[in-house]
């Protein structure tokens, strides 16, 4: 189930809120766990069993690691085996088709790829359980003794299918000792409404523009159209993804959880390094905590540091989907970040604001082309078109028409990408004008409902993650 649907908003959410808040305190986690399973099964009726297996495995291994006490080798062995099983499951369901088809084309074999569909959210919940296992191993957190509480953590519907990747240590205390309260609930609503509007009103909207432009590649796509298309996609993925995170954080808040922020206005960044500190923060943190630092981070000399950066970015690319363009995307950022680390960052700091800002936006937009176009041949043609190679017109009627039609929405999206929108709302709704915030929530929900009922276009972008 996705948040941006009438089923979620007007069936699942009211039922869930009612059951959750009517349930006595000791039963609240059970309610959350069971409803999360329903939420997941709504989209993946069979794979819910796979997720339950992952939950059970993580739960038992956590207990085992703790029970082994001072037996370091035993603890490590159990944790390593658990993480290995988690990764094997992820490998089978996410990467086996990719590996087999590449083997076939490289070796000329005709191995049959296993016919499994990718379970939604598997990359998110697998990373969450791994973080738990490793944190217990590192003695950062005590093992969770209550299966229901642990299940509620892994399966918790707000962050289940599109993140953020909530590390166990973040919510360990709140899992059993949280206090839901009206302040959090109201803040949660406001946050949820904001995220819903970002997804439904902006991301879906400009997503249509990207689709139109991409579809015209090879048939009337102009240089201006190609840029317009990738600008639209840049806004689509930001507002979609950060909108989901807002909704997740808001829903978590309603139930008394405080998740960490996942996006911090990434498009205001002045370097690619900064961009990645502000984009999908929970994924970056995860890779830093569980891959980069264990590999030695930047403390073992320049050569190893670059090796570690390469490892992280290859994995980051592949995490986003089993396809070569994501590998390329990871490598692209790896190179940019290495270049910045070695010399570019110093130059950028000295450069005028607009220079470093434009540099960053250009790098990120090019990155999104690699990300969005999963066919290498088409990718090449799209980039060529952007730079006027291959005989594309500079601008044509289609580009002008779409620009005139989408111009205002793109401007709103641009303003919304900076801190401007948030600070304006905060100022407008301060003190005695607090009612403005309540009114905005109502308007958001009603307007989004208009768009959801007329459900022409409502894509889910994370089916490959």
């Amino acid at each position, binding site marked *: 189930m996705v948040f941006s649907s009438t089923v979620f908003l007007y069936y699942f959410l009211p039922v869930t809120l009612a059951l959750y808040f009517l349930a006595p305190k000791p039963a609240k986690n059970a309610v959350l766990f069971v409803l999360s399973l329903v939420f997941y099964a709504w989209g*993946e*009726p069979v794979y819910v069993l796979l997720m339950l297996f992952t939950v059970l495995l993580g739960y038992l291994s956590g207990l085992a690691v703790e029970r082994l006490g001072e037996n370091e080798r035993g603890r490590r062995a159990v944790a390593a085996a658990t993480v290995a099983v988690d990764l094997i499951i992820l490998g089978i369901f996410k990467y086996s088709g990719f590996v087999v088809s590449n083997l076939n084309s490289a070796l000329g074999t005709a191995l049959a790829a296993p016919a499994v569909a990718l379970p939604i959210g598997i990359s998110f919940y697998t990373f969450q359980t791994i973080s738990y296992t490793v944190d217990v191993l590192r003695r950062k957190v005590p093992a969770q003794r209550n299966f229901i509480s642990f299940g509620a953590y892994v399966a918790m519907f707000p962050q289940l299918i599109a993140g953020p990747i909530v590390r166990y240590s973040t919510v360990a205390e709140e899992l059993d000792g949280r206090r839901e309260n*009206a302040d959090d609930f109201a803040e949660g609503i406001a946050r949820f409404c904001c995220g819903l509007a970002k997804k439904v009103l902006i991301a879906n909207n400009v997503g249509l523009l990207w689709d139109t432009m991409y579809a015209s590649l090879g048939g009337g796509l102009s240089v201006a159209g190609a840029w317009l298309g990738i600008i639209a996609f840049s806004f689509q993925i930001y507002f979609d993804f950060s909108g989901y995170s807002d909704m997740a954080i808001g829903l978590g808040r309603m139930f008394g959880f405080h998740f960490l922020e996942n996006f911090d206005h990434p498009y205001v960044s002045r370097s690619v390094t900064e961009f990645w500190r502000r984009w999908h923060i929970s994924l970056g943190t995860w890779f830093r905590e569980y891959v980069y630092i264990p590999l030695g981070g930047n403390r073992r000399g320049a050569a190893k540091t670059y090796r570690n950066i390469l490892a992280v970015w290859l994995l980051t690319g592949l995490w986003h989907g089993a396809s070569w363009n994501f590998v390329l995307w990871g490598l692209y950022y790896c190179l940019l970040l290495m270049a910045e680390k070695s010399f570019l960052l110093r130059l950028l700091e000295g450069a005028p604001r607009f220079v470093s800002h434009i540099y960053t936006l250009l790098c990120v937009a090019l990155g999104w082309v690699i990300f969005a176009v999963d066919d290498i041949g088409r990718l090449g043609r799209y980039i060529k078109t952007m730079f006027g190679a291959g005989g594309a017109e500079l601008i044509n009627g289609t580009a002008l*028409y779409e620009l005139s039609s989408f111009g205002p*929405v793109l401007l709103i999206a641009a303003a919304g990408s900076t801190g401007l929108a948030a600070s304006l709302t905060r100022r407008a709704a301060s003190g005695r004008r607090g009612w403005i915030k309540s009114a905005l*929530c109502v308007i958001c929900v009603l307007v989004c409902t*208009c768009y959801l009922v007329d459900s022409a276009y409502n894509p889910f972008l994370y089916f490959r993650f």
Partner: protein
Amino acid sequence: MEKRYGTATIICFLLLIFGFFAANAAVPDKTFSDNENAALTAFPDITAQTLKSGKFMEDFGEYANDQFVLRDLFIAAKAELERLSGKKENNGVLFAGDGYLIKKAEPFGRASRLNIEAIEQMQALGRYNISVLVAPTAAEIEKGLLPAFAYTDGERQLIDALSYSAAECGYYFCDAGGEIEVLKGQRYYRTDHHWTSDAAFAAYCALMRGMGREVPQRDDFEITELSDGFYGTTWSRAMLFGARPDAVLAYIPKGVEIKVVSDGEHGELIDGEYLEKKDKYAAFLGGNHAVCEIESSIKDGGTAVVFKDSYANCMAPMLAASYSRVVFVDLRYYNQDPLELADGYGADDVIFICNAGTFNSERNIAKIGAFIE
């Protein structure tokens, strides 16, 4: 957030989601949407099978949207919001000038070529007297009303391709666009994708003239207004609050007796029942049928077999003034051998009548090709 405003937010939000939850549960389901001219999804079956495959959940999602309380109001509000946000279209329908809602033109492409090819193949058989009337839609003729840069030339390309093909292969292609363009008054409905009966009449005259048949006179027809409250298909896709309804006219030949048989049953030239409903254009012939046979009291007018889409429906009464028998075949619904049908009726003329949008986007005429060795 200050305490009382936080409370206000909570109350408003809960009222909204619980209010709609209750309203959706309380309001009985509808089976049909007049506005969209489409069946609405009913509550899906719950079985172990549909739960396991996820079909129940998928259908429930559609059900929730289709049966949402005040659905039409929400959809209309969305169209209005799109317009307010500077959009020039909604659901593929352009907000044009003078209150026109115009379906975007379809690009010339593979379907167009396959359709032309089928006509050429049929012509090559040598035993049919073929005429083709492909009517441009409002996106072509009313291009002056379109938003800036919204015009695309897919229909123009189609007309050119047909003119070329006709000259090469020897069938008659009637480019009625010119005749329609010079018409004063309304040539297309503001709220529907069809042409008006006035435009159809101009095209009909051009067709008869081009085929070398007697050119009909306006005075031979009784022109009646069937309705002045027509909100058509383009309005359904872009339900603006202030849209003005259209008037629907019918050209009925004077002093001609007409008998209609639709799909083997008694039919009507003008089916008054539809005038009470939303889709008033469907009054012509009672909507689309696979086969609709019209016999008129015209002596020695011959038989025409017309392969058509709904653009031909309002022209049906006019054609009944020229032919003793007209057989309308809608290839979207007719899946048997159309040549056998034409032969069976002993067609003197075979006429293709459809609009450039369907010709460019649907492979209906192309189906004929499959029946030619």
